[in-house]
């Protein structure tokens, strides 16, 4: 019969010196604040601003979660630990064979960690970045195909850093077998990647799944996967565990079908749906990359997200992070926390200090929301059918505080008389390899925000300013270091007045490209 292999301590090649969790615990115990038993209480702060149409109990859970709340991601950080290298299914958009250090995409990591190393890394990061509130396990394989490593990591972290929220991301194949364990470890957020509920479509995405010691291919494999994903989702929501669903939008394969997926997961209790664009550059060596399967354009992605929005909350700010990402979304600090560096770091887990810092962050958020409401009130009464997109250069905190030339991404807001709504972000970092290297970087920026009417920046030089104007995008620097939404609404008000006065002829903009290349390290 099948004898399971003991996994503990089995794969540590190439890693630094092994630190036992006892040593880590000792260091923690010597520091103040560790006596507090946090359980799953976590930090709860005042304002309910930004709740949208989420039920209060769900909002309470997600409002400080950078991966779930679009607003929180400006203020709170998350980290992933790569303890789960093995996977039990094969996806045509995934290839774990190449790990380019200059890359940022799911499934890519630079180092694999043992649970003990992961626990130490979490403590090191949490004591350096006080706004780090969420720890996720997202691979690089499937966390539930590595259950011993995944749950050991959760166990160690819940003992040493009880205020940190735990989450995991899974393909769902093994999910029904682990729901009780997930509940036991107080994992309050689970993400399931569901790309189809129709096995015929699934067969085009998943060449095989490995389940119950068998390899299943084609429609049979996809049927098995979708059945287990949906059952796992139902079991989690029955137990009150929040579930987000990720879907990869693959034009011509599952793009239309995702509306049906949206309905299926909503009816089973998923609270948030994150439709992400396919990443398929040939140099990544994925099946889709090699067969020339294209990813969606910005407008195709937005149209699909919009068409699902009536059904449930859509997530728009996903950056498709590495499986070992650290820091605020869009600002990866994983290079600061390699195993080697973490082992040398002084780990001082300061629970009280963390909570004090987070309270300060809350004050800032409340101020930002108040500013937005104030400006929104001045829009009241303005009647116009015009909706348009604007891009914003920001370093975070909800402020227009990035120089145009330094921006690695732009946040995109949709403006209408109803206000400013965040609808996504556009990465514009320089392209590494893949044939884009010679292209004028300004042109790639313009292409990425080509559907926007204006771009808000803290500062911008004369040259790019002129190029933007000739491309039909208004560069706006007069709101430097002010709140994004307040400024965008103020600008929009002025724009509507100009349109009404006949000074500006309002017209639609074109489509925009979604960055396909690898992220160049800063």
């Amino acid at each position, binding site marked *: *019969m*099948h*004898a*399971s*292999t*003991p*996994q503990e301590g*089995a*794969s*540590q*090649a*190439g890693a630094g010196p092994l630190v036992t969790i006892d040593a880590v615990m000792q260091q923690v115990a010597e520091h103040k604040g560790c006596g507090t038993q946090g359980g799953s209480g976590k930090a709860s702060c005042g304002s309910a601003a930004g709740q949208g149409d989420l039920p209060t109990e769900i909002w309470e859970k997600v409002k400080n979660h950078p991966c779930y709340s679009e607003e929180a991601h400006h203020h709170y950080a998350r980290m992933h630990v790569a303890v789960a*290298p*093995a*996977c*039990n299914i*094969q996806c045509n958009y995934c290839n*774990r*064979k190449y790990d380019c250090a200059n890359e940022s995409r799911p499934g890519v990591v630079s180092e*694999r960690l043992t649970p003990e190393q992961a626990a130490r890394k979490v403590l090191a990061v949490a004591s350096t970045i006080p706004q780090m509130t969420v720890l996720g396990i997202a691979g*690089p*394989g499937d966390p539930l*195909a*590595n259950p011993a490593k995944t749950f050991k990591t959760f166990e160690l972290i819940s003992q040493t850093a009880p205020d940190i929220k735990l989450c995991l991301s899974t393909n769902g194949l093994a999910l029904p077998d682990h729901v009780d364990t997930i509940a036991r470890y107080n994992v309050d957020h689970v993400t399931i990647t569901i790309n189809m509920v129709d096995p015929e479509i699934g067969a085009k995405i998943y060449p095989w799944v*490995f389940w119950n*010691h*068998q*390899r299943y291919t084609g429609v049979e494999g996809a049927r098995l996967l979708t059945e287990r994903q949906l059952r796992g989702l139902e079991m989690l929501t029955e137990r009150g565990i929040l579930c987000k669903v990720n879907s990869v939008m693959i034009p011509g394969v599952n793009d239309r079908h995702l509306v049906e997926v949206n309905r299926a997961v909503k009816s089973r209790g998923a609270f948030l749906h994150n439709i992400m664009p396919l990443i398929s550059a040939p140099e990544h060596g994925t099946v889709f990359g090699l067969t020339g399967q294209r990813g969606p354009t910005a407008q195709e992605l937005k149209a699909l997200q919009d068409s699902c929005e009536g059904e449930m909350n859509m997530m728009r700010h996903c950056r498709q992070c590495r499986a070992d990402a650290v820091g605020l979304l869009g600002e990866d600090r994983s290079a600061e926390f390699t195993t080697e560096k973490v082992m040398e770091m002084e780990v001082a887990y300061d629970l009280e200090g963390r909570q004090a810092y987070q309270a300060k962050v809350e004050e800032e958020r409340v101020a930002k929301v108040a500013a937005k409401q104030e400006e929104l009130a001045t829009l009241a009464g303005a009647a116009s059918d015009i909706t348009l997109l604007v891009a914003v250069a920001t370093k975070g905190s909800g402020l227009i505080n990035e120089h145009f030339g330094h921006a690695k991404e732009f946040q995109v807001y949709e403006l209408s008389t109803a206000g400013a709504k965040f609808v996504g972000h556009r990465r514009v970092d320089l392209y590494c390899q893949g044939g884009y290297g010679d292209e004028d970087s300004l042109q790639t920026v313009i292409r990425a925000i080509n559907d926007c009417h204006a771009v808000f920046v803290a500062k911008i030089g004369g040259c790019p300013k002129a190029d933007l104007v000739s491309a039909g995008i208004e560069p706006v620097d007069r709101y430097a270091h002010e709140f994004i939404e307040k400024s965008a609404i103020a600008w929009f008000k002025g724009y509507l007045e100009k349109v009404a006065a006949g000074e500006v002829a309002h017209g639609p903009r074109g489509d925009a490209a979604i960055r396909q290349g690898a992220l160049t390290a800063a």
Partner: protein
Amino acid sequence: MAFKIIASQCTSCSACEAECPNVAITEKGGTFVINPKKCTECIGYFDIPQCVAVCPVDDTCVIDKAYPRYQAAS
């Protein structure tokens, strides 16, 4: 014969390690290796060798002809 893992193909994902019914697979020098003395080609356990079935890279777990065919204990 036992199975072996082509080191240049191995992504070191560790999927095979947990599936081997004989605990014949361990990590060595950054990739995974099969101990031919322990490998039974999964005869008597499963229809297909588990390392082959779970390996995400095709043609990575292959028959090692340097060893005689494994005979299940009768």
